[in-house]
């Protein structure tokens, strides 16, 4: 059967990203660099900033297979083999004068270091501040550690958001337009609703899409284009595509055999091969934490024009990696129950301690305490050198082999 909306989500995403990078190359206006988790793009848009997300560049370079080269350039400069590959990729881009397969990345006029959930972010922008000789605004985001500190943290972040507003006014000579902020927030909110709706469709059997390997592409607009109407329109398109897939009983694999939840980032430099390891077993991701790094909207977090700064502060603090391990583990458990998953797959990446440290404890919790089959595998999200296909295949095969075997024995 011919599907009318086939690959709409992918095609439109590609167009949107192409035009986003096109605008970075030829567009006008000051440039701010931001991090994806907890980004405060809504505050910057009214000032006319074009925003660059170095993590997205790193991700794209990974997929386009140039991350390896960039990383080597940074290592030649003295960066260790043991530090985050995203940072090195970005330093490599800087050393290459901003040129990437996606287009030329403009230099920053301002670095907004919203460091939700990752201290490496600070070191990263410190390095860029040095390399580009650009000013840096540090938005200090406390870790969500304790219920008792939540209120104090929200107030602290809110105050700094006003500091940022003042900083931007100063820098651009534009007065802050609160009405515009509210409008932007309203667009964000609508897109967040749709994105949440989209992801919840993975509850269906079969799931119309892979909530890891496909969702990480669908997530680009919510991370990059939040606060625009393009973003809203995009999710309408994807939802249509998924509705159609469901009507036709089409899913990401010919036959859905295992439903799993994924924890941790994917391996960008070997994305296809990595996915194939699972596809071969009829595995479908029904939920993943990585697709939520840009915001945990399904927990009810929303940008809200009625409470502009507070809602931004709430969003900023409630990013997946800014959550303490207990909350993260509870979220995983909730995913497994809600999406009726058969297993948990933990992909531990060397680059990202923020994600990885503590994953072995998750493994303990799920496999030993909750009795949920759990597979932990290692590679990297940025550095192509840490991917050992044969080893990974061995593990993935053994894992699903034994799941399959147990199913046969138990007659389910």
């Amino acid at each position, binding site marked *: 059967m011919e599907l009318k909306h086939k690959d709409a989500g992918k095609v439109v995403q590609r167009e949107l990203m192409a035009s986003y990078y096109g605008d970075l190359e030829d567009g006008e206006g000051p440039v701010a660099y931001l991090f994806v988790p907890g980004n405060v793009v809504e505050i910057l848009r009214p000032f006319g900033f074009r925003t660059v997300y170095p993590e997205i560049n790193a991700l794209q370079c990974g997929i386009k297979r140039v991350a390896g080269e960039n990383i080597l350039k940074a290592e030649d400069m003295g960066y260790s083999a043991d530090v985050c590959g995203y940072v090195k990729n970005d330093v490599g881009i800087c050393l290459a004068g901003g040129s990437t397969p996606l287009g030329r990345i403009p230099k920053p006029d301002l670095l907004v270091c919203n460091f939700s959930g990752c201290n490496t972010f600070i070191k990263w922008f410190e390095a860029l501040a040095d390399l580009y000789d650009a000013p840096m605004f540090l938005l200090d985001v406390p870790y969500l550690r304790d219920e008792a500190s939540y209120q104090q943290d929200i107030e602290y972040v809110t105050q700094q958001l006003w500091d940022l507003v003042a900083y931007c006014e100063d820098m651009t000579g534009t007065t802050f337009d609160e009405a515009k902020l509210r409008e932007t927030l309203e667009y964000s909110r609508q897109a967040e609703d749709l994105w949440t709706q989209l992801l919840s469709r993975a509850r269906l059997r079969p799931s119309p899409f892979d909530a890891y390997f496909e969702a990480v592409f669908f997530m680009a607009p919510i991370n990059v284009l939040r606060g625009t109407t393009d973003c809203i329109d995009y999710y309408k398109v994807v939802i249509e595509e998924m509705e159609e897939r469901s009507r036709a009983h089409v899913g990401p694999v010919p036959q859905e055999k295992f439903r799993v939840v994924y924890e941790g980032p994917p391996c960008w430099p070997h994305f296809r091969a990595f996915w194939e390891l699972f596809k071969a077993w009829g595995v479908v991701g029904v939920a993943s934490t990585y697709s939520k790094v840009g915001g945990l909207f399904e927990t009810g977090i929303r940008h809200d024009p009625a409470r502009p700064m507070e809602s931004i502060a709430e969003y900023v603090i409630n990013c997946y990696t800014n959550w303490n391990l207990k909350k993260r583990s509870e979220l995983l458990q909730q995913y497994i129950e809600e999406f009726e998953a058969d297993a948990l797959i933990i992909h531990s990446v060397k680059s990202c301690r923020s994600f990885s440290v503590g994953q*072995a404890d998750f*493994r303990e919790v799920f*496999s*030993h305490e909750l009795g949920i*089959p*759990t597979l*932990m595998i*290692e590679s990297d999200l940025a550095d192509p050198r*840490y991917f*050992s296909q*044969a*080893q990974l295949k*061995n*593990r993935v*095969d*053994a*894992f699903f*082999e*034994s799941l399959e*075997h*147990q199913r046969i*024995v138990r007659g389910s």
Partner: protein
Amino acid sequence: MYVAGVDAGSTTTKAVVLDENSHLVGKSLRATGANVTRASELAYEECLHASGIREREVSYVIGTGYGRYKIAFGDTQVTEISCHAKGAHFLFPKTRTLVDIGGQDTKAIKVSDKGEVLDFCMNDKCAAGTGRFLENAATVLDLELDDIGPVSLRSENPLRITNVCTVFVESEIISHLARGQVVEDILRGVHSAIGARTIALVRRVGIEPEVTFTGGVSRNVGMVRTLEERFGVPINVSDLSQYMGCLGAGLFALERAQGASPRRVKRVEAGGS
């Protein structure tokens, strides 16, 4: 009816033939060397020879081990993780924890009362602390592989070996020798170093008795003793420990042959499938 299991390991290739009552009819073992396909063919031939049966009497062959996809004459393949669990369960039905140390890797497997894999972990990206490590130590000390275990047990004053890198351990051993340390103490240190690494891996799946030790390194009494000390429980080892992978493969083959479709008549040519 006969079935066979072939385990193309990184270091050695092993094969067994079983009859329909799961009895071992014959076995063989040879170095894998440079050509996995060839080694598995030879091991299989030798095994048939040792069993005194002809190839066409074998209804089903399963390949396992890191070279399992290279075993052209097999009917299908199963990972060595599942196979070791199967084999260990067959020989020691109470096995709950399985440790397999081979030439280049170490695995810890949690096994159910039915012999299914419940959980497993493997060492990563580094050959440190595996059979190869012991082989290197043996070479540097000018000993036979068979001797290092017994010699290590004579140690009264074990040294601490800090380096588990398979390559660098050579220089560490040489410098101990140069300082006049005795061979058994060095060897005991080498065994302890592997023991420490192994137990850390096994802890990931949890240590639940009974513990069974398989793979080539289980032939080393020094290693068995070290692990028993570390685990604090006796450990099952059998003469067939190194064959556990192909034994498991053979048992899977028997299940397939008895349960599912009989062996396809058409032979699969080497190379194609």
